[in-house]
């Protein structure tokens, strides 16, 4: 699988994302924000950082880049897209994912290891055993809602997920809540402990924590690999 990692002025974690894609067994290359053509990659990572300095609003400028037009087409065609942190913010600004990210409840940047529960795509219809969450199905699910707990670091100042109640109800009904902070790990005040969401089709996923920083046992954990692997089936 060939991953393309977008690079905007102000991106920070694009090299980490490249490395992570390679660790999970893929090839990876950078895609400059002005490129309208993704060059035939199978999947896209919109990486973390501070694209365009987070000026105006996190992700608000990056969403207008030519590369994001191409990403929207790729997503519409069912191709996998993973937005991490600032990349999640960009995907929300671009309308590829529902909701918005607001400043952390305590108004401070926070960097720490967190537990996430990875949730199946359609819990009411297909249990995790049916394989609808990629390789998660290889593991015994944990937790009452059929999810599996991952240890992945987070680091952000604007990571408080927000959406109106009726939208949240709809997201939950359609299995669009992809990652929830485990109890005691919602450090930013996200509504309903939501750490990441997916598109209705499931091929576009965004989350605030950083799976690309959780692929090497030396630097923390390796649970982040599963976040990449879960998207491979859309390629």
């Amino acid at each position, binding site marked *: 699988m060939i991953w393309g990692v977008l690079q905007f*002025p*102000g*991106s*920070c*974690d694009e*090299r*980490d994302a490249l*490395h992570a894609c390679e660790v999970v067994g893929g090839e990876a290359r950078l895609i400059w924000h002005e490129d309208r053509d993704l060059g035939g990659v199978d999947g896209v990572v919109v990486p*973390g*950082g*501070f694209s*365009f*300095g*987070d*000026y105006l609003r996190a992700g608000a400028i990056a969403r207008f880049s030519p590369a994001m037009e191409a990403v929207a087409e790729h997503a519409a065609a069912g191709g996998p897209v993973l937005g991490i942190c600032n990349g999640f913010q960009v995907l929300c600004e671009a309308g590829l994912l529902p909701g918005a990210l607001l400043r952390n409840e305590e108004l*401070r*940047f*926070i*960097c*720490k290891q967190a537990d996430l529960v990875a949730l199946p795509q359609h819990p009411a219809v297909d249990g995790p055993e049916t394989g609808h969450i990629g390789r998660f199905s290889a593991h015994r699910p944990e937790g009452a809602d059929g999810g599996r707990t991952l240890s992945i*670091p987070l*680091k952000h*100042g604007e990571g408080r997920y927000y959406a109106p109640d009726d939208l949240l109800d709809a997201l939950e009904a359609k299995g669009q809540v992809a990652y929830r902070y485990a109890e005691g790990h919602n450090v930013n005040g996200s509504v309903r402990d939501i750490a990441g969401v997916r598109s209705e089709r499931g091929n576009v996923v965004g989350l605030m924590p*950083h799976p*690309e*920083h959780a692929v*090497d046992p*030396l*630097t*923390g954990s390796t649970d982040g690999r599963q976040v990449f692997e879960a998207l491979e089936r859309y390629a």
Partner: protein
Amino acid sequence: MSRHRELGLTDSEYELIVEKLGREPNAVELAMFSLLWSEHCAYKHSRKLLRRLPTEGPRVVMGPGENAGAVDVGSGYAVAFKVESHNHPSAVEPFQGAATGVGGILRDVFAIGARPIAVLDSLRFGELDSVRSRHLLDGAVRGIGHYGNSIGVPTVGGEVYFEEPYEHNCLVNAMCIGFAKTADMVRAAAAGVGNAVVLMGASTGRDGIGGASVLASAELGEGDDAKRPTVQIGDPFEESKVLECCLELLAKGLLVSLQDLGAAGLTSSAGEMASAGGVGIDIDVAAVPLREADMEPFEIMVSESQERMLGVVEPAKVDEVRAICDKWQTGSAQIGVVTDSGHIRILKAGQVVGDMPVEALVDGCPLYDLAPAAPAAWIYGNRATLPTDADSATTLLALLAAPSIASKKWIFQQYDALVGSRTVRRPETADAAVLQLPEAGNAIAVSIDGNGRKVACEPFNGTVEAVLECTQNLACVGAEPLGLTNCLNFGNPEKPVPAWQLDRAVSGLAAACEELGVPVVGGNVSLYNEGPDGPIYPTPVVAMVGELPDPARTAPSAFAKEGDAIGLLGPFAPTLHGAELTKQRGELEAGLPKPDVAAVAAACATVREAVRAGRVASAHDVSDGGLACALAECAIGAGIGCRADLQELRERGCTPEEALFGEGPGGFVLSGERGELEALGARVIGQVGGTTIELAAGDRSLIVGLGDATEAWRSLDARAESVAEPPADA
């Protein structure tokens, strides 16, 4: 004659300028001279002392005089590092002061062609119960985080002390580590007559005019508000673009040389590049992109607007350089040309508005001898916060809760410590930060240390202790020092006591480095750090980079598991001189024992090899708060209690109190298998286990619940968070 005094030049310095020019300087020239002849740029009170420092070693790639020092880490790679102060700006406006401190040190590192891979910080504030201190702490931490987080360089470590003498003059020292292929590194010397001088990055505005000379070369006093416009404003996004742009330009071989713009802006950058290359430079101020159209030539030359770099480019490559700047959406303009005149000439639309010999401007400032005099007694205050008759358990909890000892989680949690995927040991999990270098197949460890209180007690011995502390921290993660950099934060060198402190401290630094065989590859000096009550504690901050062969073999500070033996290793002979306990009792006085550097070095070598061989489960050096605090920290970090008998220290002539809470260099707390510890020469003093910390020390024995100890050690979180508005007078 009064204008030069307002700019900080003495009458005799002014006369020397007139003599070197053969005429009176005009306003542009006077402004430029005043900055380059300021303490901050010319090191005129410290340069002679710094010649004492050993600067050579087999692993040194770049030494003092370059934008940053660098050491060889093998496989054709080098690690660059430098620490620099931003004290005075931070005392005026902590957020921007600290942010631009980080921005400035990053530029120093990528100016030599190294990609910044980590930041560390050394901070000093007044006591935490002061509203001003909490305001400064909050602003500085936010500022460091804002800049480092936004630009994608992890903040992996640092240290903080809270002491009354820093109340009016906080210290913000920022350190950057860079990584480069040795062959790709670049020096800052201008070369090639006829080559273009290209200014890259942000446009030039009126911010920070006179920042270096006004803020960092005189004491801050009443009416500091008038100096607020001299604080620079940082934009990490701009720096991120300039950084990537410069690294791309260097990788493509498009630059002859590169220099950052820091203190004294274009004046200093152009002057230093010309001086290093033995050439002249003509600068056309009309070609400099401005934020405000009506700026005077002198303002353009001395502006300290941030996020700017100066490159020397062959004429045929200028278009390509500018195209890459355009790609990164950052500014570029050819503003000058390298000449063979040996002069810096400032032109405006073809008219010469300033013309100075480079030698006079850059190297002509007179260097002064100090007039040191030792004080008759302890010159700093004493404030008792702990009764002398407090029992041992109460004392341990008070020490663990001391802001200088307590967990700094509240601070480091606001920093991205992970970006770059090199961080093997996160803050507070080991005694030094560890960064893996997969490209070179090994790893480095970094530590930054400097207990000003000890240096105040005795500047020579206190500085030796700072170097030893740094060395011990590296040993705990299995690293061997490759090089040292430093930032010397002192009071007014024109006064006898700060002059004596500086003189003795530099001698101590030189002696320790000489004996350890660690070269000093760079440094920075910040003088005139005084408040209305006198000078700060003399604070030489030392930072070391060490090498370790295998990032998987680094010991944590905390105990690993129940049942492990606890060993004490090293020539540890604790006393209460300058100790945290002595401070809390209000009994500080002059004097500090002379450390045995060779014995400490031998213990470091033992620990280093043991860690590399995986023979110990944990390693932590005994530092502030003594052995009792070191053991408590190991237990708290593990979430497991411990029992230890400190009889060993009593055999060395220590009182029970000194055994528990006394401080001094050379002590390591190790844990692991009893046989292994004994084979290393450690004395087994106890065992990991239980839910209490039980320390036997004769009539001062103590038992403290692990929960209580943890609560005390974690107490900074809540106390620092109670940030009030800025103090009414700031």
